[in-house]
């Protein structure tokens, strides 16, 4: 079993125009920077991207938006991106906004073999329109379906060649669920190590979910809102 690929370009082999991708990250935290750059380079179009956010104008998924490579975004929050807002309001970009917890659970369900579930989030709002409603313990819930993707692309801090992953800080976010929900899942990591170097007790994503892994060439890890206090 050889999961290790040389670089981002090799990792995204097989991604074609029109496919559905999942991309981990929250804001610019924990996004697969190297694979996004490779997708811009590859030039695939008409992509459906499932990601909590859409990056900023000149970083993250914003880079794919700039090049008009995205047909549809499935996200929970898309502020902080002018080009995104322009494309959405003009109708160039299809956008499916879904509650953040439902997005996380739909990805988790997709990877866990649960086809759908009921949640109270969104009942009585636009999100609930046309969805089956059922009452549990006297409270209304709506039916949400699992999400899967042709490729899921996640970013971790450390990974071993078996695909076991450890995330750092709040860069974990959506990455573990999306790793489970890709038909093929690509992991890019800051540090790729040999089996045995990671303590099995501290693995966040078991390697079974990962098909391809590589060490990213460099990480900018841009900060979206730098907030500090003075000593």
């Amino acid at each position, binding site marked *: 079993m050889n999961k290790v690929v040389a670089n981002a370009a090799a990792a995204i082999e097989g991604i074609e125009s029109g496919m559905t991708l999942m991309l981990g990250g*929250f*804001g*610019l935290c924990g996004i697969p920077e190297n694979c996004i750059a490779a997708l811009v380079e590859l030039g695939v179009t008409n992509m459906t991207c499932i990601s909590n956010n859409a990056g900023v104008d000149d970083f993250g998924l914003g880079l794919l938006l700039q090049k008009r490579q995205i047909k549809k975004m499935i996200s929970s*929050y898309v502020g902080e991106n002018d080009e995104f807002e322009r494309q959405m309001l003009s109708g160039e970009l299809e956008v499916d906004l879904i*509650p*953040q917890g439902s997005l*996380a659970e739909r990805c988790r369900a997709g990877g866990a073999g649960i086809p759908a579930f009921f949640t109270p989030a969104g009942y009585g*709002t636009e999100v609930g329109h046309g969805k089956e409603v059922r009452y549990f313990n006297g409270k209304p819930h709506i039916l949400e379906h699992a999400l899967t993707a042709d490729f899921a692309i996640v970013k971790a801090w450390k990974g071993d060649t078996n695909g076991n992953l450890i995330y750092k*800080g709040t860069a974990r976010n959506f990455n573990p*669920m999306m790793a489970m929900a890709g038909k093929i899942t690509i992991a890019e990591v800051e540090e790729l190590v040999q089996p045995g170097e990671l303590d099995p007790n501290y693995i966040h994503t078991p390697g079974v979910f990962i098909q391809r892994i590589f060490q990213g060439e460099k990480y900018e890890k841009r900060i979206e809102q730098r907030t500090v206090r003075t000593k």
Partner: protein
Amino acid sequence: MLDKIGIAKRIAQELQDGWYVNLGIGIPTLIANYVPDNVNVEFQSENGILGMGPFPFEGEEDADLINAGKQTITAMPGACIFDSATSFAMIRGQHIQLTVLGAMEVADNGDIANWKIPGRMVKGMGGAMDLVASAENIIVAMMHTNKRGKSKLLRQCTLPLTGVKCVKRIVTNMAVLDVTPDGFKLIERAPGVSIEDIQAATEGRLIVEGDVPEMVLA
């Protein structure tokens, strides 16, 4: 009349020892600065941390440690980090005792709208719909009127809803109000604000019973 800090200080008085609390973006974030001395609470940020600490000192920012507003933060001793599905399990499963969030409109039946202005502004609901659908205790922190002077406390919301019949309490620059089956019940007035001022700024049904006390802020 209160400013945003005043609103945050008043809501901080609601915190109870041992609570886990989720603070939304904007005024709610300020509440963390005014936790009473004898009260220990843990702040949850829905992107995946419990035990969120203050902003880092300059030069110690970590791109891998942010809150739901994407601001750089620190982790308190005893903090823990988890994925987004676990985070919303805490929220949906009612393991978080208090949610404070901002709003564009609140109706007198507890409906809330805070994620979309059709044709003009669509940022998305983020975690707000999950939070308001499940939280047992929801406080809205907002200004009483919008920038054009129009009431944000309405008989019915005009904007797309975030959640239905879920808001329990509202703290504005003018008043503290509870949502009851008969409308907004005036609980406290902000310093220097009269009942008449509040009535004039409230479009929804307003219930005033007896002498309504003025807020006491430390």
